[in-house]
């Protein structure tokens, strides 16, 4: 039986937004934590560490996010863990986000002038203190706009969790479409909801970029 698209269907879509948001927050926070280490590894003095971080970034940036999700999802069964699509999506998106944030933040760390590193180390600061008190506070300022901008990519990326069967906004859209058979309407609404989530972040990122860029030029 074909149902009409009504208030209930719309509410179903809206309630699926919480899963999209939850997945985005997990990927962003988890990816941020791992990404910080990737960025530090990428800028480390020890060559093998740099290579390792670089390889990590290259692999995640050189393969499709969808494949990464598939590999986590099916790879878990290989090592004997029965993983739900929800956990697989969270792990896959976290790893992917960490590689991209790591590369973005590497640029930010390296944008801190060399003299700052030299001054800090000549004052006797070791690596942890040098990073914690001198380099990272300056790098964070540069990092905020692109990081907010990347949050948009994370939110959009969560839509791929639909393909491995996790019910977030896009999958909810497919389900509603299968029941109502009004694809144009349903997916337009889904797109509009994503737009409502992402556009403010895009605008914020642009505004932050303009604000931080102005005084230094």
């Amino acid at each position, binding site marked *: 039986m074909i149902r009409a698209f009504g208030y209930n269907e719309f509410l179903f879509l809206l309630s699926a937004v919480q899963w999209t948001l939850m997945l985005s927050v997990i990927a962003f926070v988890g990816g941020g934590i791992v990404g910080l280490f990737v960025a530090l590894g990428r800028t480390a003095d020890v060559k093998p560490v740099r290579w390792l971080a670089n390889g990590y970034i290259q*692999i995640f940036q*050189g*393969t*499709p*996010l*969808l*494949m*990464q999700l*598939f*590999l986590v999802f*099916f*790879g878990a*069964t*290989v*090592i*004997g863990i029965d993983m739900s699509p929800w956990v697989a999506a969270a792990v896959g998106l976290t790893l992917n986000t960490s590689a991209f944030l790591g590369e973005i933040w590497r640029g930010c760390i390296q944008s801190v002038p060399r003299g700052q590193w030299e001054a800090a180390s000549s004052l006797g600061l070791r690596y942890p203190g040098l990073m914690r008190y001198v380099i990272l506070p300056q790098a964070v300022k540069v990092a905020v706009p692109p990081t907010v901008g990347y949050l*948009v990519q994370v939110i*959009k*990326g969560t*839509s*791929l969790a*639909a*393909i491995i069967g996790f019910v977030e906004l*896009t999958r909810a*859209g*497919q389900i509603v*479409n299968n029941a109502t058979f*009004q*694809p*144009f309407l349903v*997916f*337009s609404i*889904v*797109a509009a909801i*994503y*737009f409502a989530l*992402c*556009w403010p972040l*895009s605008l914020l990122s642009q505004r932050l970029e303009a604000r931080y860029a102005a005084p230094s030029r």
Partner: protein
Amino acid sequence: MTYDFQFDAVFASWDYLLDGAWLTVRLSFGAMAIGLAVAIVCALGKTSGPKPVRWLINAYIEVIRNTPFLVQIFLIFFGLPSIGLRLSPDVAALIAMVVNVGAYATEIIRAGIESIHKGQIEAGLALGLRPLQVFRYVVLKPALRTVYPALTSQFILLMLSSSVVSAISADELTSVANNIQSQTFRSFEIYIVVTGIYLVLALMFSALFAGIYRLAFAYTVDRR
């Protein structure tokens, strides 16, 4: 670890995988070429078109950049038939990729065009070049050179994101992998091999783009 890896199933369908990879490559290059043309026109419209045109192009860019590619594909493949436009999965995939990359590339090329100093354009006009010639030789080519790295990494991202079109069963690499997976149930083996193929494709694309840069923009190499 007790899992028994069986790659035979994957390599038994090697030809099929290569067919899929070939379609991925063709889709990507098709979308790049058409998307680049779309982007140049839109970037020109955005930098020097009348206000309504600029507004329209802006809306296009913002809508595409702030919605997921997967939803765009669903809208084109499932949505368009409801207004009477029926597309095969491959064509729908190509259109979705063009529409998507067009928006990103427009922003990139616009940035390039805006980096051209006004004096350059005035100098071009003063030398007697027609406006279209000024755009072609004085604005577009240096602009493309400036944004070339950003543009080509966008193209590689496009190739990678083409795996998403498997959701509408276009016969590209990921779809082929899904088909083999559903026949053999060797999921992990298939997907690790296909991930490897994507990585190789990405490396090949970036080598190719580096080669094209040397051929197309060689005159600038010693100036930097």
